[in-house]
């Protein structure tokens, strides 16, 4: 019989111990009110804390001696069937699944009781890695027969951290699947109606041209927008596309030590101005003209949006749609602002093993299964994202006509994949976006100039970066 971990034994013994530490008064002696209250509170507190502690600090072994692997992921990405399949293939492991919740994850990390396997993005991992919260995976990659460094596409490099920068050094996570999120999807039928030539599926359009086409495709009537020419998923991310625009012009988002930003450079101001012009033209949803559900998909499917900026994953939405949709959609390369063609991923969702995880070896087994086993092959074949392994690229679907076109465009786009800058001193888009949105809106409403907005963004983000530096050291 396997020996129970020490913590489990303590938890099991706690109720009796909690009560017995408050001795009864001698017979015939009255207990004082204060003592009664203190005792009651402590006893009840002790009794209450047992299940609470038990909930926070679940046993790492099940009753039948299996290792309990705590996994925090999205239920639609790591399904019950996949979990059952993994458990069947690894009879000594039982998965305790927790739906992904950033706040709960933070609490678990802070209390040194993290899950063993956690969902996380590659772009934005710098902070986690700089804080020493993730496990270095090189030792596992070097020994693995199914996952090794040679098999990984460069997108995984955003999970690398050398102590100063992303892109080099050990791997601290692996990408599940990804997309080059600046690519464009468009509806040919709406182009035809507006008598505009469809976008090239091989050559990138410039952002300025894209805005002009967006204006021509936009239809308004009676103060309402019937058709949006161009959607940018404003509610999802402003930081990543703005960064891409800056990099495409040869600019930088952060200083070399990642502790400062400057959004008053000519490159940054041009990018900000493009966004201001886009919003003023009213060609797509923004915070000043929000989409009903905050996303472009419903508008695009309803033929109320001609172009939407989304990655390869977007194609997964259309497989079950009508032939009218499938026969009219197409994907175009990411637009460019400047001379350098860059087509990055905005996130690259994957997984990491926390540094304080209790079952790292078992978590690695799940990593191998999830990233290189049947789930990864199913994902690659589904069209919901680009696989993160070189060997699986050819599995991407090409059955439907639109899938063939998308596959070809996407293959050519891979050449321009590049990592977005990621500072460990700030929480990525989550911290950038409210600041960008606030000052962009002021510029759009002509309350401030674009230059003043750039200065205000610089000041606010630098303040956050400084605080992050103060925190991480």
């Amino acid at each position, binding site marked *: 019989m396997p020996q129970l971990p020490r913590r489990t034994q303590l938890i099991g013994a706690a109720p009796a111990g909690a009560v017995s530490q408050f001795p009864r008064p001698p017979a015939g002696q009255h207990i004082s009110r204060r003592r009664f209250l203190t005792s009651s509170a402590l006893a009840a507190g002790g009794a209450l804390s047992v299940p609470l502690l038990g909930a926070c600090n679940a046993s790492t072994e099940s009753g039948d001696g299996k290792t309990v692997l705590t996994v925090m992921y999205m239920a639609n990405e790591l399904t019950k069937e996949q979990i059952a399949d993994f458990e069947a293939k690894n009879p000594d492991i039982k998965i305790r699944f927790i739906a992904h919740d*950033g706040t709960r994850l933070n609490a678990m990390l802070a209390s040194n009781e993290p899950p063993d396997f956690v969902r996380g993005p590659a772009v934005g991992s710098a902070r986690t890695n700089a804080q020493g919260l993730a496990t270095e995976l090189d030792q596992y990659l070097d020994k693995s027969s199914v996952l090794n460094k040679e098999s990984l596409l460069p997108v995984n490099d955003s999970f690398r951290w050398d102590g100063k920068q992303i892109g080099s050094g050990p791997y601290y996570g692996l990408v599940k699947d990804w997309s080059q999120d600046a690519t464009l999807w468009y509806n040919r039928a709406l182009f035809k109606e507006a008598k505009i030539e469809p976008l090239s599926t091989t050559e990138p359009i410039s952002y300025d041209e894209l805005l002009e086409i967006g204006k021509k495709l936009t239809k308004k009537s009676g103060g309402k927008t019937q058709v949006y020419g161009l959607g940018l998923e404003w509610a999802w991310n402003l930081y990543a596309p703005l960064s891409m625009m800056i990099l495409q012009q040869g600019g930088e988002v952060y200083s070399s030590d990642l502790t400062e930003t400057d959004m008053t450079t000519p490159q940054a101001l041009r990018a900000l101005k493009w966004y201001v012009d886009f919003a003023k033209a009213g060609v797509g949803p923004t*915070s000043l003209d929000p989409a009903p559900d905050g996303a472009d998909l419903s508008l695009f499917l309803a033929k109320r949006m001609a172009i939407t900026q989304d990655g390869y994953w977007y194609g997964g939405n259309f497989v079950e749609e009508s032939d009218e949709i499938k026969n009219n959609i197409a994907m175009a390369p990411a637009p460019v602002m400047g001379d350098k063609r860059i087509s990055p991923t905005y996130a690259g969702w994957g997984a990491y093993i926390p540094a304080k995880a209790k079952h790292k070896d078992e978590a690695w087994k799940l990593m191998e299964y999830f990233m290189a086993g049947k789930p990864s092959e199913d994902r690659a074949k589904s069209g919901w994202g680009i696989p993160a392994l070189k060997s699986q690229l050819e599995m991407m679907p090409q059955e439907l006509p639109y899938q063939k076109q998308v596959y070809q465009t996407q293959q050519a786009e891979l050449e321009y994949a590049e990592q977005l800058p990621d500072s460990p001193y700030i929480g990525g888009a989550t911290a950038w*976006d409210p600041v960008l949105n606030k000052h962009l809106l002021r510029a759009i409403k002509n309350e401030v100039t674009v230059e003043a907005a750039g200065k205000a963004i610089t000041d606010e983000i630098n303040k956050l970066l400084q605080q992050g530096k103060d*925190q991480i050291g």
Partner: protein
Amino acid sequence: MTTKGTRRRRKGWQRYSSRTFYLFASPWLLGFALLTALPLGYALAISFTNFDGRSPRWRWVGLRNYTELFDDADVLASMVRTLAFTAIAVPIMVAGGLGLAVLLNQRLKAVGLFRAIFFLPSVVPMVAAAIMWKLIFNRDVGILNEILDVISIPPVTWLVDPNAFYALVILILWGLGGGMVIMLAALQGVPAELEEAAIIDGANRWQVFWNVTVPMISPVIFFQVVTGVIFTFQIVIQPLLLSQTREVGQVTHVPESTHLFMVQVYEEYFANNRYGYASAMLWVFFLVILVVTLIVLRSSRLWVHYEVDSEADR
């Protein structure tokens, strides 16, 4: 002897009574200790650190968070905005609840049905209500603009500045039913003979309402004002859900006019991961709410009428 014995017995009885009280109150006391006092103390401790909510790397920063927030223009602006929102929303909420209660206190056919209809929105979960209103307010597909269109009013972009402020007030007013029920109960507790006496003395309906009914229900109005002030100060879910916020911890694009103090706190916690700073904000906010509530309490001496003179009983 007799006196001593009586005293002893009374002391024993008193002790028994107190124990019973505390025993029955213990679930609440425990809940308060574990779920309120402990987190409050924890937040106070965190407010003196640069803790980011997850990293073991944090340190004591003394009063830095407190001094910094008084220099933070966004914090001050959101505080002023919250005070303004409270000053506007609470009187409308209280007057609206009272108005509805007066209407539904009449002898009408199917008055119970009307009461249920007006009360129903207040039992709909706020998240569901906010999502529903977000769709109602949508410029292009929302039903509100469709209705306006019928009367030839051009579509309004409700969910952006400055209209977002009014949209939030409308959303809050949608839940008036809860206050209405309390006001209704208070109205029905007003002795009819007092109103009849006033009518016999020559008072018209308005004079009866203003000089008899309102003073009689003023303790309930006072209760509504106090709870309304605390409620509006703490509003956070509604502005987040009316805007383009996707989920907790994710991006927020809340319009400036509805960027209330608690929204600022939310962003500091979940977008900027500044747990120490946000905790300091909450403690300062706690003191602000306390002061405002005490002011309202003190003002009650001037306008709240109690049938029992509590001062005379002492």
